[in-house]
Each structure stands twice: as structure tokens, then as C-alpha cells.
């Protein structure tokens, strides 16, 4: 055997290894997943086809009803999007699901109720709604931010180096604790935000569609908050530091960034957005209780995954997609299949979307942005 210095080998032209298609695999897990996928697509396709046929024969929904559903979905989706930002940013930076983020949102909603109720009794709510709203927003944002900062400081920071399921379990505990603490503090009944003044809530034409003022307000506030967040993350020094920490904590620390501070900021900003969403939720649906955080929390997490975890624009888009899907989905797909009581199945739809998204597109529609260690 002679020592050969390597020249370019002159073997046969190398074969390219393509991923085996699902039809070639003999792995039963893949086969099972394919079946699930096909069934899901089949159900959606069938339902949608039936829906189209119904529409064509004029038996289905009026276009106005459909439009209303879509608008309702967008308004709700905007709130999901706002909550999703918190999941997304924290996952982007720390690689862990803050299960208690839904409760941060709930704390904002409850704080909003307490303040707005007080203002209503003082009469300021009626006499000067704009000022009242600003006060409510400020207090709610403060409460949510404080809640999330406390959470980080007490429960999550000591676990930063632990295996990733440990902080997840902790956050489940935090969530459970907060729910029941609020239950103890304000009682089990649902609390109502005061109604909006008539001049605001009345329907008005907007771009050719009739819209409820409340929904417009929700969309407006959500949009302004998003824009503020975008400005913060993209344009300020702290925002840039945040992105650096999300990319690689160690390198960021080497470059003189105070990682602890940035992580707190991340939690805080997420909390603030959740606080805004809490107030909007109260304005739109009026009833809030200690359970208000659970479902929107899970759905917002779904939205974050749909949009691609760590991707802020994606989270907002994911929220809108989920909101619309949830509001039109049952009527669009389940109703035509002849399933009774579809409105009851709204949450089943939401959870199914969660399961299907995590099963088949865990990296989201618009791409994940995770730090180096979490991608591995």
C-alpha cells in the first residue's frame, strides 16, 4: 500500500442521496403520520368542497355573515398575535415555553377590569373615555409586566441551566398557581368590563364594510402596539441587543451585553403586549375571569408556532391566521359535513390546529428564529 496524496478521486459519479419519499419508506411511524396527514387533508378538503357547493346553490351563509365572521376572526386573531409575541420572544431567547404566559395576559385583563370598573363608578369612563382607556392600558401593562418580571426572577432564572423540561414544568406550576391565586383573590365569577360609550361601539362603514367600533378600536390598539414593538426591536439599542442575545447568548455576553438584563427586558416586553391584549379582550368580550388566560394562552402559543417561533412578524400573522381559521373553520368545514353543534367544537378545532401544526410544521410558516443551541 503506497501513501497516496489525495488527488480528486476518479470514482463513478457520486450518487445524490435524496430523502426517501413517504411512499418508499417502510417505517410504520412515517406511514402512520402520512395517513393522519391524508385524513386531515381529506376532511378539510371534503368539508370545503361541500361548503363551496352549498354556497353555489345559495343554501350557505350570506356573504355578509361570512364577512362578519372574518372580521371577528381578525379582531380575535390580533389579540392572539399580541399574546403570541411573548411566547415567541421568550422561546427565541431562552428556548423554553413559558406556559404561564396565558396567565400574564389574564392578570392584565383582571387589572383592566378592576381599574375600568373603578373608573366607571367615578364616571370618568363615560365622560372621558380616551383618558380612561389610557389609564386602564397603563395599569394593565404595568401589572402584566410586573407579573412576568417576578415570574422570571423567582421561578425561571434559577433554572436557566437546567434541562429544558424543568423550566417547562415550573411554568406549568406557575400557571396553575396564578390561576388559583386570582380565583382566591377575586372569586370564581366572571367579571364584566363596563360597556363602551355608544359613540365608539356603534357600527360604522369602513373601506366599504360595516364594522363595529369596538373591533376597530381593538385593531387600532393592536396595530399601534405592534408598531411600537417593531420600532423597539428593530431600531433601539436594547432591541438590537435582544436580537444578539437571541442569536447567541455567549457571544452576546462577550460583546459586553448584559444578558440578564436583556432577558428580563424580553419577558417584560412580552408581558406588556399581553397586558394590552388583556385590556382589548375585556373591551371586546367584556367578561373576564381567572380562567380567561388558559385557552387564549394555548391558542396564542399555537399562533406563535404557526408563524415560526422567534419570528415576531410571523407571530402576528400566525395570530391572524388562527383567529380567522377558528372563526370561519367550523362553519366552513364542519357544518357542511353535517356535524351538529359546531360552535361547541370551536376549541376542538383550535386544539386540532395546534396538534396538526406541531406534528407537521413545527418550524412554522414563516421560519423559526432560534438561538444556535436550540436549533441543534
Amino acid at each position, binding site marked *: 500500500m503506497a501513501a497516496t496524496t489525495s488527488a480528486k478521486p476518479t470514482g463513478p459519479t457520486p*450518487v445524490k*442521496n435524496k430523502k426517501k419519499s413517504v411512499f418508499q419508506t417502510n417505517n410504520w411511524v412515517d406511514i402512520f403520520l402520512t395517513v393522519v396527514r391524508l385524513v386531515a387533508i381529506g376532511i378539510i378538503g371534503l368539508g370545503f368542497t361541500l361548503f363551496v357547493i352549498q354556497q353555489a346553490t345559495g343554501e350557505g351563509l350570506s356573504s355578509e355573515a361570512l364577512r362578519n365572521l372574518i372580521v371577528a376572526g381578525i379582531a380575535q386573531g390580533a389579540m392572539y398575535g399580541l399574546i403570541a409575541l411573548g411566547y415567541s420572544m421568550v422561546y427565541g431567547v431562552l428556548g423554553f415555553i413559558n406556559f404561564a404566559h396565558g396567565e400574564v395576559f389574564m392578570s392584565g385583563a383582571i387589572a383592566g377590569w378592576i381599574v375600568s370598573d373603578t373608573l366607571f363608578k367615578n364616571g370618568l369612563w363615560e365622560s372621558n373615555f380616551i383618558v380612561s382607556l389610557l389609564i386602564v392600558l397603563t395599569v394593565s401593562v404595568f401589572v402584566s409586566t410586573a407579573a412576568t418580571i417576578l415570574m422570571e426572577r423567582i421561578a425561571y432564572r434559577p433554572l436557566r441551566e437546567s434541562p429544558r423540561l424543568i423550566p417547562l414544568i415550573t411554568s406549568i406550576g406557575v400557571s396553575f398557581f396564578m390561576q388559583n391565586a386570582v380565583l382566591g383573590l377575586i372569586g370564581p365569577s366572571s367579571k364584566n368590563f363596563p360597556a363602551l360609550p355608544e359613540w365608539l361601539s356603534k357600527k360604522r362603514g369602513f373601506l366599504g364594510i360595516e364594522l363595529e367600533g369596538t373591533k376597530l378600536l381593538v385593531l387600532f390598539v393592536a396595530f399601534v402596539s405592534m408598531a411600537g414593538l417593531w420600532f423597539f426591536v428593530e431600531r433601539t439599542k436594547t432591541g438590537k441587543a435582544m436580537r444578539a442575545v437571541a442569536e447567541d447568548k455567549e457571544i452576546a455576553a462577550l460583546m459586553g451585553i448584559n444578558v440578564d438584563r436583556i432577558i428580563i427586558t424580553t419577558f417584560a416586553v412580552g408581558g406588556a403586549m399581553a397586558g394590552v391584549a388583556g385590556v382589548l379582550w375585556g373591551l371586546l368580550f367584556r367578561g373576564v375571569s381567572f380562567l380567561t388566560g388558559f385557552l387564549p394562552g394555548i391558542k396564542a402559543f399555537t399562533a406563535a408556532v404557526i408563524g415560526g417561533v422567534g419570528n415576531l412578524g410571523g407571530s402576528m400573522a400566525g395570530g391572524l391566521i388562527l383567529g380567522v381559521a377558528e372563526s370561519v373553520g367550523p362553519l366552513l368545514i364542519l357544518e357542511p359535513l353535517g356535524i351538529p353543534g359546531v360552535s361547541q367544537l370551536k376549541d376542538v378545532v383550535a386544539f386540532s390546529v395546534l396538534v396538526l401544526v406541531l406534528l407537521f410544521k413545527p418550524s412554522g410558516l414563516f421560519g423559526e428564529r432560534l438561538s444556535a443551541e436550540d436549533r441543534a
Partner: protein
Amino acid sequence: MTRLLEIENVSITFGGLKAIDDLNFHVDEGEIVSVIGPNGAGKTTFFNTITGLVTPQIGDIKFEGQSLIGLDPNEITARGLARTFQNVRLFPQMTILENVMVAQHCRTNQRVIGPLFRTAAWKKEEAEIRERAEKVLGFFGHRLVGYRLEQPAFVLSYANRRRLEIARAMATQPKLLLLDEPVAGMNPKESEELTHLIGRLRSEWGFSIVMIEHDMGVVRDVSDRVVVLDHGVTIAQGSYEEVSTNPTVIEAYLGKAAAESEGGGSLDSAAHSGEGAH
């Protein structure tokens, strides 16, 4: 000699980085082949590719004539390949005995019924697993047996962790054993002893061996053939003497200038200075 492992034109790219570039490689039955090269040359990636942890974008890997591409790591182990890890990865909370017993998973098949009904087949299999585990551990003298059997792996010293990792790989009953820097972190006495054991792994247990190693003494003493990797490319192969005097190899280790100034510098010193860097 029959071909055991045959690697044809394999390339691995991580993002933009070519970790393995159009590599050809083979191992015959009964051979001990050493893979050397500076840090970051792609040696560990090469092992990861063979054992299915990384799938090559291009190329084919054949073991006993059958392609391994697309197989899961556990299926590859079942075919008769086993490895150790450069950064020792034991199951730290499991006992030493359990570490070795669990490695026989793919050679055994009792699941639920056996242990629940304490069938004869299950008892026999458990006894065999244990016996084989003790035999494998016994290969390393008294270090891993006796009271040690029931100790969790994390109490072991570094050298013993390495030994246990080799034992665990042996327990999978491989035909080809892949050792990633088996003597790293051992003192000269320990590495000399392990070198001797590696020879016995072939003569007594019949394993063929591919070994990544920085210690040129070990490489010289046990290898039939040495392959030198740099930047994912084979820059030389042949017997230890041939490779160690090859100027390209010395250059890869020491850089061009050093290679020229030292003239016929030897690889032993080069490798040792290279080792200091990692």
C-alpha cells in the same frame, strides 16, 4: 480479505462548511485502521456519518456489501457497528452493569410478557445478558467489576469512564468497532495498557477496528493502516511509517512554514503539538 466497510464519495456539508469532502474509505475484515488529522478535520463527523447520526448528502456507505444510507442509528448498530464518543457519553445515573446490559438491547428481544410472567425464556435471557456484561467488563481487569458493578457510572474516574464506554460498545456485539480518541485524557501508563487491550480486541474478540487518535504512540503500535484527514479530505494513507514522513501530512499539522523549516520533521512531535491545541 473481505471488505467490511466501504465508503464511496461521501460529502457532508453543515451550512456552508464542508466537513467531509468526497471521501473514499474502506476497512477490511480484521484490520485496525487509525484516522488521524488536526482538530476540526472532520474525523468525528466521519464517525457520525457511518453510525447514522448524520446523513451524507452525497455518496454511499456499504457495510458487508449493503448500503447503510437512510438507516436509523439503532439499525446500523444492529448490523454490527458500534462506537464510542470523543466526549464520553455514558448513562451517568445507570449503574456500570446496567450501562453494559442496556447495550445488548438489539441482540435480545424480551419485552413485556417475559418479565411479567417470569417465563423461562426471559430468565435465561436475563442471565445471559448479565453474564455477557460481566464478561465484557472483566476484559478491563478488576476496574469495572466487583463492587463497582452496582455503582452509578458517574462515580467513575475519567479513564474508567472511557473504559466503560468501550465495554458498552463491545456489548452490542459488533463486527466493527469505532473508537473516537480512546486514550484522550489518560496518563501514559493507562494509555499503554489500553493500546495493548485494543490489540486484544482484535485477536481475542475478533473485532475490526477504526480508531481516531491523536496519540502517535498508540497509532504506531496498533494500526495496520493510517488515514490522514484534513478539511474533510483524505490527504494521505498507508502504513504508519509512510504517513509519518509524508510532507503533506506534516504540513497539515504544523502549517507550511514549519514544515519547510523543519525539513524532515517527524509527525510524532507534530501531532503532540497539535494535541496541545485542542
